[in-house]
């Protein structure tokens, strides 16, 4: 069987030599840049003088707020080089344009009004740079009445249908809608944007002209598309959409030390679970046949709850999976970090940051047999690569000019 040995991969990265200039904030745009950086792109992250707002979002390393210690910033900006620049100055904008002259990708999260403000409209940025891929990931895209409206991760999630769909999973009917934990739905915008950018790189390589193009992603649409099945059913299949989650066997059960979940569409999976429970009589009808789990779902769920209440998550998880029953333990994040499975797969890699110290960073969720995994770098300190980039890309800038542009 094909297996990717984590220590014996290739010697190159997929996006080696691809230059990305990133002007984004917080989670969605930075995650798109992080994916490209993990795949080997040279990502130069521009920050305005105040720094990315992720730098002000707790928790922080060493237990106190510090712009170099914020979990959100560290996570979403790993493996990038940092340039602090004041885009309100002419000099600052010239630096950006100089960088864009040599870049393959410009990744930003400027809304239409912000693009106007900075004179960075996607089409005009491509003027004279036919090879450039100009990508944006913004809350509501580059067009439409909401494109410049104020929003936050919470309001975006509720506007996307995500929160409405998710509440059905709480098992309490259609009550107060709920937000997904963390910033998962913001990161979804970043993943969609990274896909759009790589698709544009593929398309660029296909053409003799080598032309780039404009890639536009809306965070709201990136969220909605993940709930496309529920949203479409709600629109097109009224009768089906009124049925709530939890019909039939399956759902969530409480056990001795937490919770378990499962969906079990296949008969052999149900048989495997029954075997795990020691073939109890209540799972069979008078003729010795396994009870139909759809028809008797509620009663079987009660029995399962009774059985699981005296057992631990780990005990049931491993025993059920050994019998092909797709039971999942509701793990705490700390338990994911210490799982043997993820240790073997090197899913968490240690990065050593000058201020924050050694921390475990998630990797891309796939192991590639022919190319190297992500670099083991960390997020840049604010303005960390200013001198380096001034010398490397902006030769001819005097220290005084650079200071006026906010880069020195």
């Amino acid at each position, binding site marked *: 069987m094909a297996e990717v040995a984590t220590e014996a991969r290739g010697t190159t990265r997929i996006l080696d030599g691809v230059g990305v200039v990133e002007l984004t904030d917080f989670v969605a745009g930075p995650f798109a840049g992080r994916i490209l950086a993990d795949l080997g792109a040279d990502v130069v992250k521009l920050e305005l003088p105040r720094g990315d707002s992720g730098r002000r979002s707790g928790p922080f390393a060493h237990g106190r707020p510090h712009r170099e210690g914020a979990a*959100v910033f560290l996570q*979403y900006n790993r493996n990038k080089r940092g340039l602090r620049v004041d885009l309100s100055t002419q000099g600052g904008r010239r630096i950006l344009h100089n960088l864009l002259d040599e870049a393959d990708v410009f990744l930003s999260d400027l809304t239409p009004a912000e693009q106007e403000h900075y004179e960075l409209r996607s089409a005009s940025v491509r003027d004279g740079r036919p090879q450039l891929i100009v990508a944006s990931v913004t809350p509501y895209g580059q067009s439409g009445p909401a494109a410049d409206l104020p929003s936050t991760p919470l309001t975006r999630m509720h*506007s996307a*249908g995500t929160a409405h769909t998710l509440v059905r999973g709480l098992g309490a009917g259609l009550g107060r*809608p709920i937000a997904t934990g963390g910033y998962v739905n913001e990161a979804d915008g970043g993943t969609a944007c990274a896909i759009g950018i790589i698709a544009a790189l593929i398309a660029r390589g296909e053409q003799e002209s080598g032309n780039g193009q404009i890639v536009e992603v809306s965070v709201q649409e990136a969220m909605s598309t993940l709930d496309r099945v529920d949203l479409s059913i*709600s*629109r097109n299949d009224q009768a089906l959409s009124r049925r709530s989650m939890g019909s039939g066997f399956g759902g969530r059960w409480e056990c001795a030390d937490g919770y378990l979940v499962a969906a079990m569409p296949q008969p052999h999976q149900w048989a495997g679970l029954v075997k795990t429970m020691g073939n109890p009589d209540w799972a069979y009808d008078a003729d010795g046949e396994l009870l139909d789990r*759809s028809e008797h779902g509620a009663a079987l769920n009660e029995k399962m709850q009774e059985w699981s209440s005296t057992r631990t998550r780990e005990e049931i998880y491993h025993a059920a999976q050994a019998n092909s029953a797709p039971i*999942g333990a509701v793990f705490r994040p700390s338990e994911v970090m210490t799982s*043997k499975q993820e240790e073997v797969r090197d899913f968490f890699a240690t990065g050593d940051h000058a201020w924050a110290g050694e921390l475990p960073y998630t990797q891309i969720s796939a192991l590639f047999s022919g190319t190297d995994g992500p670099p083991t770098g960390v997020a840049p300190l604010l303005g960390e690569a200013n001198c380096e980039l001034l010398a490397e890309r902006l030769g001819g800038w005097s220290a005084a000019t650079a200071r006026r542009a906010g880069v020195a």
Partner: protein
Amino acid sequence: MAGPLSGRRIIDFTWAWAGPYGAMQLALLGAEVIKIESTTRIDHSRQRSLAAGSFGGGLNQAPMFNELNLNKRSLTLNLKTDEAKSIVRDLARISDGAIDNFRPGTLDRLDLGYEVLNAEHPNFVMVSASALGANGPERNYVGYAPTFAALAGLSYLTGQPDGPPAQMGGSIDLRAGTAAALAMLAALYHHDRSGQGQFVDASAREAIAMHMGEQFLAVAMTGEDPGRIGNEHASYAPHDVYQCGSNDDPEWVAIACRNDREWASFCAATGLTQLAADDRFRTGLRRWKQREELNRTVESWTRERSAQEAAETLLGAGVPASPTLSGDALYDDPHFKARLNSVPISPPEMADREVLAPPWRLSLTPAFIDGPAPMLGQHTREVLEGLLGYSSSKVDELEAAGVLE
């Protein structure tokens, strides 16, 4: 139309939700995606939904299957027969890659694993997307959306502070499928540049976990697991979802004030001027500490109006707000309509439907939806005769021998 993957052909061995959506994204980007199906081992999304149960229609009438297999072609094969394996090998020779979401090792047991396909087509690209990956002690474990979310730690973080963890559904599968599509695009790009193929081992659990990496950093920094906070924020208030209208037919509006300026705008726009003057709510920290009381007052305002009216009032004043949109309300939303997010399609055995547009807008090589999901085996003959050049009498023989079931 020409998408960025036009001219590429992908063999799609996937079923259920995550894998099919992974392959569908390649089809939306222009690839020709040929889904290998079986009449005896039917993709369960043609029959039922984990959330809603059996929908009661025929195999070509399932809304779930349709949403996850747009733009694809369907080829039915009984992979237990040698002739069917031979067809897959023939197909591999003229394809760029393959994607599957079987339990690791399943395709190898069918003698159709990466080594076999790569021998037919050197430098083949293959993405194998499983629940927990193809190595490690739990490589044989299986799961669906609720399992992946639970194992990744996301269920634990999702829910009300005083309630249980959420049992999560469809979007989890589609997120795992999105990560698989990302991996395929990366591998195809590498093949374009280097000529090298590769095998990619993708984990659905890790696909969820990589979208919440800061939560693991938080554990390492604080020594504790973050808790469930519902719709709240660690430092902003008001920041929640509020009921509008009556208990019989409630609507909901999400409101977030991030700073003193938005708070002042909120008080002015709602006419709750007594709040602006109240010393208990003067700073962000005070508002956050008194958020229970604050939330009651905010909800007393929202209950007097519709979610739409509440959101419009606040947005007009520069305060982030949105109604909690259900599917129908989203399709009818002016912004959704202005961006042409609803695409009409006409599946052969279903009523006309509106599905969601692809989530990327590419100016030169746009993604597109050019057809509904295929009927079971709809393209079997077309693929065998048209693509592989089999004679119609050979296809008749294969059919008679049960190879195409």
